[in-house]
């Protein structure tokens, strides 16, 4: 087995073995280890529920943002039709932010969906294994002397323990991902709180934050393009033109 020490699978196997050794208490009864398995199953169910909750929260934010995108687009059109290009530009800039956030939220919702599916599969595997352990435990107890039964059931408990460690890791990864997404959801909420997606006629403070966010997104170019397109649709000026030409027409709605 020379060279084995460097293998990925070996590193993982030894880590899991250590984890199981740590969890194992020789003094504990066999029924107690079954109880612990059931608790672990409950933990997985709770983990799945947490992922579902996070997914719902992001989904709700996404539908709010969708509404904002429509609203800001309408406002930009109205502003442009009324000859207020500056307001139209601001509306489009915010629409751009909303769209960028929306795209990222949609991706995250999809990611959480697949986490949920994977955890559900893991939960099912663990549930089947624990049920099998329960049956096996009773059979072994009936067939063997107490001492031998103890050994055999311990082996089986280790097998189930490995499954629990596997599911535990899947849960931890799901929780980490969910935490990252919570941070993202909080950031979107801050943008909302700053009035980024609000009615533009009621603009308050917080403008500086929004401008900073815009700069970070580098959304300027896309906004220019969209503004030119919208102008063309409204029959103002020529078809999508170079930014230089747009600027010259800025004060002349």
């Amino acid at each position: 087995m020379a060279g084995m020490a460097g293998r990925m699978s070996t590193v993982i196997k030894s880590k899991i073995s250590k984890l199981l050794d740590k969890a194992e208490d020789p003094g504990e009864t066999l029924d107690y280890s079954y109880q612990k398995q059931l608790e672990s199953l409950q933990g997985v169910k709770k983990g799945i529920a947490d992922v579902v909750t996070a997914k719902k929260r992001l989904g709700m934010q996404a539908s709010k943002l969708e509404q904002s995108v429509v609203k800001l687009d309408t406002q930009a059109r109205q502003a442009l039709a009324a000859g207020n290009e500056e307001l139209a530009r601001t509306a489009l800039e915010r629409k751009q932010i909303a769209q960028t956030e929306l795209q990222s939220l949609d991706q995250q919702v999809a990611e959480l969906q697949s986490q949920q599916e994977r955890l559900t599969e893991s939960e099912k595997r663990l549930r089947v294994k624990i049920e099998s352990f329960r049956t096996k435990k009773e059979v072994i107890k009936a067939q063997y002397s107490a001492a031998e039964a103890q050994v055999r059931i311990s082996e089986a408990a280790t097998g189930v323990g490995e499954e629990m460690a596997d599911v535990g890791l899947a849960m931890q990864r799901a929780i980490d991902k969910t935490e990252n997404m919570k941070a993202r959801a909080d950031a979107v909420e801050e943008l909302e709180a700053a009035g980024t997606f609000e009615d533009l006629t009621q603009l308050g403070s917080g403008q500086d934050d929004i401008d900073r966010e815009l700069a970070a997104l580098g959304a300027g170019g896309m906004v220019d393009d969209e503004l030119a397109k919208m102008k063309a649709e409204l029959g103002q000026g020529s078809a999508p033109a170079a930014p230089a030409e747009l600027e010259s027409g800025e004060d002349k709605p």
Partner: protein
Amino acid sequence: MIVRIMGEGQYRLSEDCVGRVNELDNAVVKAVESDDEDGFHAAFEEMLDVIRSEGEHLDDADIETSDVIVPPPDTSMVEAAAEFSGDGLIPD
């Protein structure tokens, strides 16, 4: 030999097949060490393919301890690298 793909389940593999898996595992480690992302994915995915196609999938109700445990299929190279530095998916 029993091989577990984390997050997926266990497979029963022949000794020959485990030899092949070990070779690919070495390739995975080499790729991680030389920061070769494409090499990592190629070797890791082939390793998973060998286990899935050559191995016999164990029933969920079977209770067996694995001889070999490989990380989840969606493991990134960064996660795999962290595993070797002792601060990976599984706590020490």
